[in-house]
């Protein structure tokens, strides 16, 4: 049961022009992943691209796990061309996970764009109990709506261009939700994944309202296992010389899920 294993592509399904759903079959027993954790996937056999790419666990399957990804640059473009039966090197599951809500807490899950990939398995975990706020650029960039609807306590959707549901951002929805519900819902805890500006807004709203928020961050990564110190984010704290290493935390090891209040945005 190693965190370094080979997986076989079962399917690599186009969802729209630039999103794919990758189903991997583990060829060895793997460690059980937790919601919010991620994998490093090999995207080429050669030296260019060189590094593995990071992808969140989308969901566990009976034979392995699924990845939901967006074609971003050359690594993901190569991944999107990979055919069934192709074998890949995989590292994972890696990093921290979303702490499960404790009794009495009301989870509010916020997903911006491809951020849905990271929170989907959390939504599965807290099935029925979470409010779900999901925003994307346009109708075509919204995925798994039926499944999500079935799992959410309440489901709010927005698109930047208004092509589905409410026009606006996920932040607008969260603002509305919090101003409406903070009084009725007692112990709100936010889980969020999306572009950094969205997470920053989530953090400041949560801070203003005194709500706990768990956010999942991204940084360029080389090793994915805490060795290279390449993927750090600045955290609040003492900048005095010598106390140094506490100023940065590794997204791959202490993260990707951080307490929003901890990050120096």
């Amino acid at each position, binding site marked *: 049961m190693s965190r370094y294993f080979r997986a076989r592509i079962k399917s690599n399904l186009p969802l729209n022009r630039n999103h794919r759903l990758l189903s991997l079959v583990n060829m060895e027993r793997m460690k059980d992943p937790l919601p919010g954790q991620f994998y490093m996937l090999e995207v080429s056999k050669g030296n260019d691209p*060189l*590094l593995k790419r990071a992808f969140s666990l989308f969901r566990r399957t009976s034979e392995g796990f699924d990845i939901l990804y967006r074609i971003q640059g050359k690594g993901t473009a190569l991944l999107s061309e990979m055919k069934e039966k192709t074998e890949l090197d995989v590292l994972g599951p890696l990093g921290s996970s979303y702490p499960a809500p404790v009794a009495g807490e009301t989870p509010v899950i916020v997903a911006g764009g491809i951020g849905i990939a990271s929170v989907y398995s959390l939504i599965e975990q807290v099935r029925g109990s979470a409010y779900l706020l999901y925003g994307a650029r346009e109708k075509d960039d919204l995925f798994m709506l039926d499944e999500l609807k079935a799992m959410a306590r309440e489901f709010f959707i927005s698109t930047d261009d208004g092509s589905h549901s409410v026009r606006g951002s996920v932040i607008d929805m969260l603002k509305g939700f919090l101003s409406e519900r903070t009084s009725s819902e007692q112990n709100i805890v936010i889980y969020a994944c999306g572009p950094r500006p969205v997470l920053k807004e989530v953090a400041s709203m949560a801070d203003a309202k005194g709500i706990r928020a768990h956010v999942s961050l991204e940084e360029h990564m080389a090793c994915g296992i805490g*060795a*290279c*110190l390449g993927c*750090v*984010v600045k955290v609040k704290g003492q900048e005095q010389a010598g106390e*140094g*290493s506490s100023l940065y935390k590794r997204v791959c090891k202490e993260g990707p899920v951080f307490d929003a209040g901890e990050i120096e945005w």
Partner: protein
Amino acid sequence: MNLEVKIGKLILKNPVMTASGTFGYGQEYAEFIDLNRLGAVVVKGLSLLPKVGNPPPRIIETPAGMLNAIGLQNIGIEKFISEKVPFLLGFDTSVIVNFFGDSVEEYVKAAGRLSSVDGIHGLEMNISCPNKQAGWCIFGTDPKVTSQVVGAVRRETDLPLIVKLSPNVTDISLMARVAEEAGADALSLINTLTGMVIDIKKRRPVLGNLTGGLSGPAIRPVAVRMVYEVYKAVKIPIIGMGGIMSAGDALEFMIAGATAVAVGTANFIKPSSTVEILDGIVSYMEAEKLEEISSLTGAAHAG
């Protein structure tokens, strides 16, 4: 088959080491490979006091390589001794500590402190600091300063002293000779080449530190050439590194003149790279009917 190699008075069970900064403090990789199989573990560069490192982004991929600008973030020598050495003591491999300082005095103090600790088998002095933003780090590029700092550290320690050279110089052989004369027992080369990537949308360098150090297969031809040149210039052993991804790459370095090799960026791509490279070297020796690994060192210079 004899895989042993000698780095000064230090005998390694085989020539495959890890490159500093790419293997953490060893712990990070213990889950993926048997550390006992390595010729040596070289840990992330340490300084007397902990160091914060550079602002992110610290990493960007480049064609067949990567730039890093970690800025030598490290936990400091004391924390290393108390928290990491005990772990490493549990393995039957040589532990080599990479270290650096901001002054000759700091180098000397660091070397002195490290030399007093059980379980450290060698010191690797990083005089390259490729990430120094304010122009050039003179320790690794000005022969006079190099001689001074290496000499001072030499007087401070009885441990095997490896000096790690910067490739960002006009004449690597000269720097190698200077280090040898100042008392180095061995040389490591190469450290990273200084590079930059610019984001054309933002019209700014991508890395927080602006420049970073280029590593990976892209730099291998430069590294092999430097090992080849330095082999002709000095008598002390060379530890070759720079873009080693496979056993064949490692053998190139040995044939060029290296006594041992260090695997760096490859660890990120395959955590099992080191042991696979070792296995490949053994296969090569079998296929070529070689008894002594040391017979390969510098073979390209023969005849």
